[in-house]
């Protein structure tokens, strides 16, 4: 070809375009690699000594991601990070506060260069179970077996409340450190109850009798978080376990067939579904979300709401003067119950992780050890108004009223503390799965038997799905 004639026309143009396309296509397979492939980075480790039991590299950088949500990040920058810097003056801390954890870090997990310490929480939480089964998390056994910050003769695991380590165990090892201790139960306005001379019920019969009185006073006895009906699972399962013993919950967690059909679970479901039938639930609750329902409760339109101990701070902006928020454990379904009336559900929550591919995982572990020290935990409680899993760390700290009430409830329960794991292990099973069935039940659209069948189907779905890693306890 020595000249361009009019032949330089559409045909050649297309040919050229195809050739360019041919250049792009092989390129795109390379790119297809980009979205799903990553490298990894070198890990540094220092020498373990008595003073530095976890072998923290003393002059490395520690990259930290804190979820900037309800707890903010001041507890990290004002309490834990100064403690770390004091001990390792040559180390650097790269602090990041993030609202959307998954948005910021998902691609870094894929690329193999995640940070050293992550507060994997909030709406953008990357499911912990998935991270574990993808082998993305660092085993925390060394942390819990290390000498505690305050007393070298006591291991870290022995400074924590029962169940704290277990709450982060997936399979055979702990992968998640839960810092906050959340107490679950029913919440009411003590001022209102005192005015009317109402006393908190300890049995379900007393509860229904009181609900009748409350209704007569022109107040709806109950509300719940409407479309997020899983909040109702909490009293439902707690009451079931109080009646039938904690094995009821173990069976559910282990996905045993028929676990949701246990008599105690059915009885509990029946009791709560009865609230709707008796007209004890605030009208329109079914169509509300948690903000609307809890808002109505704060306004005094409803007397009881089920929630965890974050409720007080969540409602702080809308709580009127003279509203004294108080906690009570769920009532017993029968006098002939397996557990005490004081039994409460307390769940270690607010997850912190060290990625398996972190550059400085030992620094991440040490940072956790600092958080779990008396000073670190007390600072956490003071900054975020939440109890922690560290024994005795909140003693003498002045807590807000509702939290004090919850703490008293927890103390009264003694060893009768329970919780369940399936929502942590199998996030999908809880929501949308069980959440939608409980929503149906509470709206009165399905019977208790249909609810049981629905929950059993959700458990079966997980049980029979080979792609989901199973855990037991």
């Amino acid at each position: 070809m020595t000249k361009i004639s009019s032949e330089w026309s559409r045909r050649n143009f297309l040919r050229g375009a195809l050739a360019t396309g041919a250049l792009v296509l092989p390129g795109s397979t390379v790119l297809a690699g980009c979205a799903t492939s990553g490298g990894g980075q070198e890990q540094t480790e220092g020498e373990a000594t008595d003073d530095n039991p976890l072998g923290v590299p003393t002059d490395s950088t520690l990259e930290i991601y804190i979820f900037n949500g309800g707890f903010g990040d001041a507890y990290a920058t004002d309490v834990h990070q100064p403690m770390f810097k004091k001990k390792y003056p040559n180390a650097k801390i790269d602090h990041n506060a993030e609202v959307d954890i998954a948005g910021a870090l998902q691609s870094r997990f894929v690329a193999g260069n995640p940070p050293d310490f992550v507060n994997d929480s909030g709406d953008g939480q990357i499911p912990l179970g998935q991270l574990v089964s993808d082998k993305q998390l660092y085993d925390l056994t060394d942390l819990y077996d290390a000498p505690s910050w305050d007393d070298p003769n006591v291991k870290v695991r022995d400074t924590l409340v029962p169940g704290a380590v277990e709450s982060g165990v997936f399979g055979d090892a702990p992968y998640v450190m839960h810092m906050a201790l959340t107490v679950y139960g029913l919440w009411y306005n003590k001022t209102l109850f005192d005015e009317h001379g109402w006393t908190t019920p300890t049995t379900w019969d007393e509860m229904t009798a009181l609900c009748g009185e409350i209704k007569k006073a022109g107040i709806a006895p109950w509300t719940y978080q409407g479309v997020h009906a899983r909040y109702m699972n909490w009293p439902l399962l707690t009451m079931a376990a109080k009646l039938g013993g904690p094995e009821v919950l173990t069976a559910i967690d282990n996905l045993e067939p028929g676990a949701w059909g246990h008599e105690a679970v059915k009885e509990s479901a029946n009791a709560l579904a009865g609230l709707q039938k008796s007209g004890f639930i605030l009208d329109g609750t079914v169509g509300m979300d948690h903000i609307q329902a809890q808002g109505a409760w704060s306004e005094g339109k409803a007397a009881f709401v089920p929630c965890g101990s974050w409720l007080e701070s969540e409602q702080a902006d809308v709580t009127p003067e003279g509203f004294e928020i108080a906690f009570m454990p769920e009532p017993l379904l029968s006098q002939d119950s397996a557990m005490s009336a004081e039994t409460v559900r307390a769940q270690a929550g607010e997850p912190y992780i060290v990625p398996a591919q972190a550059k400085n995982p030992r620094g991440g572990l040490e940072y956790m050890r600092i958080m779990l020290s008396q000073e670190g935990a007390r600072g956490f409680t003071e900054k975020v108004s939440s109890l922690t899993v560290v024994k005795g760390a909140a003693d003498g700290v002045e807590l807000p009223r509702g939290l004090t009430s919850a703490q008293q409830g927890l103390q009264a329960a003694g060893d009768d503390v329970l919780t369940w794991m399936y929502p942590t292990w199998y996030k999908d099973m809880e929501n949308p799965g069980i959440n939608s069935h409980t929503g149906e039940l509470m709206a009165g659209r399905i019977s208790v038997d249909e609810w049981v069948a629905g929950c059993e189907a959700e458990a079966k779905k997980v049980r029979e799905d080979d792609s989901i890693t199973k855990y037991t306890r």
Partner: protein
Amino acid sequence: MSVIDVAPRAEARGAPRRPKPGPALQHGKVGFVLAFLAVPVVIYGLFVLSPYVQAIYISLTDWSGLTASQTFVGFDNYVRLFEDDQFWVALKNNVILMLVVPVVTLALGLFFASMINVGRRGKSGIEGVRGSKVYRVVYFFPLVLSMAVIGVLFKYVFAPTEAGGIFNGLLGLVGLDGLTQPWLGDPRFAFWCVVVVMIWAFVGFYVVLFSAAMQSIPKDIYEAALLDGSSRFTTFRHVTLPLVWDTVQVGWVYMAIQAMDGFALVHIMLGISGGPSRAGDVLGVALYRSAFNSYRFGYASAIGVVLLVLTLIISVLFMRAARRERVEL
């Protein structure tokens, strides 16, 4: 040389020959064409085609979205998808969105646009109804709001009375207390609330679009129709509609594709599970849920591929259905 010489063309037409263009010119020409084409094609390939190819590949793997490696699983994700009841619920809702929303939106859009532009028979012939200038602006309001704002707004409009629901409040004001409902908490109504909001959000755009088309219709055609004693409806049916049909056709395809989405509104108004009884689910939300709630990116990509195929089919079908002889002015 970097500019195109007209010489070759002239040469082809048999014009007097000039000195034969050398390789330098040819080189310059290729370079010129490449400079204009290669960059956009590469960018298009990189940011449009390659994600499609990647998504199709990912849909054939079990990728969780969190690892550097993934296993090829063939069509497992698609098998699982077609066996998933929730997928069919979502698909059914997408079909409803696709049929109801465009039809109602376009019909309302045409009606409002014709009222605003040619709705009145005034002294000076055909003109818009009284206050049409105001309406024209008002109909455009929803378009300045983002979908997220509209979703949050209507979540409160349809909230239960006890949570300050505006719609229930209005029903109460006109004495229709009996009709109040927890709209978004009832599987019978929740999804239709989204449909209504979607129509509300889109109709303004089509009023503007059709108004523009109607303004280009010569007034003398209307005068002729008026002199012939044609009624308002007949005028609309036989004059206005045929003359804006091209625009309606464009709007039709555009609307159908928009309605396939529905993600933002459903996600905000009904939540990630698809509302009460999960009855208001749409494919977009199912995709999002699989990817960012369950971290099954392989499965989510399979939904995405199905959505892509559906959208392509719908566009072709709608374009076929709307094909009609064009009226030349």
